[in-house]
């Protein structure tokens, strides 16, 4: 199993929880992109690099700044020896780590988000497809907000899931301190072709109608809450379904179960919710509401 292989390869090298790894892989297999929200120094870059390496994918990293232009991402045409030569930008990689996405201007952000959505970039009237699989890991620092351009909800909606790595426990930290270079000697355990085949497999994972009803019930519950200004979009629900399918496949199942829907919902919905200001001031949070929804809405299981 792919998940077990990757877990074995990364075990003891990267400060990573099993749940984070599972959700990251599921996001990749569902054809989505990941938003990592965490304070600096929790291993986001190392995780992205390690993931790209064990998956056998090409990797590049962009540090977003306010003066970064879209061409810095996508590439530019250079005049060389009488010809216009296209110089590819860092976006042409299979795993792209976008550090501090909210530091870039909305113009650059939207260029990236368009590439994420379409899987291609257009320069000087020419369309260039991005390599497959194309997986973006964007990070945001939730603490420092000065000089940033927070992503609007419509753009956050493009990210399938949002995760937080969190601080590792002491045991894992000790291990990390002993290990000088965690990426050294890290071997690929799969290739892009296998991942693309798995992406096709994800679409064939069965999601029972009752589970779709359950997903709708969760979404309706959230939309009806008075704290919520903007509830989950239809695209969000589609992505939750696809993410649940990928989670099921990673567990070796050809069908999704309520726990897959719940895990996918927990990862994919909070960053898409927009709460009312007064609710936020009163201490409500989108994560809290999602957790409450999962506790309140009955799961489709036999009732004794």
């Amino acid at each position: 199993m792919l998940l077990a292989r990757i877990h074995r390869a990364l075990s003891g090298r990267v400060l990573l929880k099993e749940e984070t790894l599972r959700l990251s892989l599921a996001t990749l297999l569902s054809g989505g992109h990941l938003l990592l929200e965490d304070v600096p120094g929790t291993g986001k870059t190392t995780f992205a690099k390690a993931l790209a390496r064990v998956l056998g994918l090409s990797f590049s990293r962009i540090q977003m700044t306010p003066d970064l232009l879209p061409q810095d991402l996508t590439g530019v045409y250079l005049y060389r020896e009488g010809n216009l030569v296209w110089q590819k930008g860092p976006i042409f990689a299979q795993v792209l780590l976008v550090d501090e996405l909210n530091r870039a201007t909305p113009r650059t952000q939207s260029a990236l988000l368009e590439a994420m959505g379409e899987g291609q970039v257009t320069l000087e009237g020419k369309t260039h497809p991005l390599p497959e699989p194309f997986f973006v890991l964007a990070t945001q620092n939730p603490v420092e907000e000065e000089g940033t351009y927070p992503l609007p909800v419509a753009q956050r909606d493009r990210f399938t899931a949002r995760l937080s790595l969190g601080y590792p426990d002491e045991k894992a930290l000790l291990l990390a301190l002993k290990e000088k270079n965690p990426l050294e000697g890290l071997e690929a355990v799969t290739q892009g072709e296998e991942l693309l085949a798995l992406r096709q497999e994800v679409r064939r994972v069965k999601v029972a109608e009752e589970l779709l009803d359950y997903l709708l019930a969760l979404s309706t519950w959230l939309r009806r809450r008075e704290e919520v200004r903007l509830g989950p979009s239809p695209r969000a629900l589609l992505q939750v379904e696809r993410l649940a399918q990928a989670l099921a496949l990673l567990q070796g199942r050809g069908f999704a179960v309520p726990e897959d829907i719940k895990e996918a919902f927990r990862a994919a919905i909070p960053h898409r919710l927009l709460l009312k200001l007064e609710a936020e001031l009163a201490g409500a949070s989108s994560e809290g509401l999602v957790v409450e929804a999962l506790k309140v809405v009955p799961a489709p299981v036999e009732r004794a």
Partner: protein
Amino acid sequence: MRPVPLTPFLGLGLLALLPLWTPPLAVGVFLLHLAKRFYGGAFLWGAFLPGLLHALASPFPSWLQGWALTSGLLLLYGLFLATKARPLSSLFLLPPALWLGPLGLFLLGLLHGFSLLEEAHRRAQERGEPFRTSASTLWVPRILGLLLAGLAFLPLRLPALPLPTPPSLSLQASPETGPGPKEVVAYPTPEEKPPPWVAFLNRALALAEPLALLLILLALWPLLGRGERLPYRGVHLLPLLLALLVAGLFLLYLGTLGGGESAPESTPSASVPTPSQENSPQEALPGPRRLREAGLALAGLSALFTLGLLFLFLFLVWRYRERGRPGTTPKEGVQASQALPEALPQDRVRRAYFQALKALKRAGLPRQASEGPLEYLERVSPLLPGLREPLWGLTGLYLPVRYGGKAGEEEAERAEAFLKDILRLCSSPASTEPFRAGSS
């Protein structure tokens, strides 16, 4: 030590009803015992059949009353047979007993009296003490029965109330002498307006009959076999057909009930009440009129309409069951699968999982409504020693059935084997006592 069976006491109790014995009633008691033994799932429907023997002795529709009475008594008796082990569920005995009036209440008291005796005998046996009683103890149920029956004779009837009739004109000769000595002048007689509560009470009494019908239908609701613990398990075709027959006869019976004021010979011109009619409390009591030919036809039509609705309802329930809703399955999943060999393997797996959930709930480990099967497994399996393996196995069989593909015979048998293990674990009082205490 085995408790003494109820039959001898019951036999004595039935002897007390000797004056009421009729051939249909005797056949019915015999049939009920027979049906309970060989068709325990829905034996109560047998209570409605022997009453049809009355049709041999009297013409239609007069035999319907005999049918209703016999069926009511047999239903009460059958209900008692089915629920005597569960004190609270004997509340179901009340609607038919009340409907039967003094006779029903007498039978109810009698049966409960004997039930008390049997309970005392069982407890004495459990304590290892001899159950000493004298012959006079047998008077306890009889007295109880008589007491209950006496309640039905209490003068609870309200004093005669005038019917809410529209003000009518009556002709009366003018006391004054007019232009001609033979001229008659019509004028309304001064009428005493009844107080407003009388009209309200009349309306309430008029509503009493449909309300009673509704209550009876509600009491019949368990006949659909919704509750696992109830004595009815109407999951077969025969009970459905019998339900239709019973409903039809019952509605016809209601249509022929007497008790109103209009006699066949009464004519519209009788609007001027005679003094004897005015003073008769019978006339003032509201109630269904005795139906004549047109009325009977109307009752038949409404009975047909209601039957149609009932049939549709039963059909929907039947279809719902066919989808394998496990909430309506009989008590033991393993037994159920043996009793219903036509059940699909996936239904058997789901039923087994449902039974396991139910057993664990009884053991103080209920599944939360929002919990998925895997979350539940992770939460409860460490709590009960030995539970992890069978619950893990059963959940592993349940998940693909419920959310994925199908199960074969082998999976169904394995699920039932896991269920047996779980039931055994849950039935061990020592292992589940802490959860029961915690949940209470």
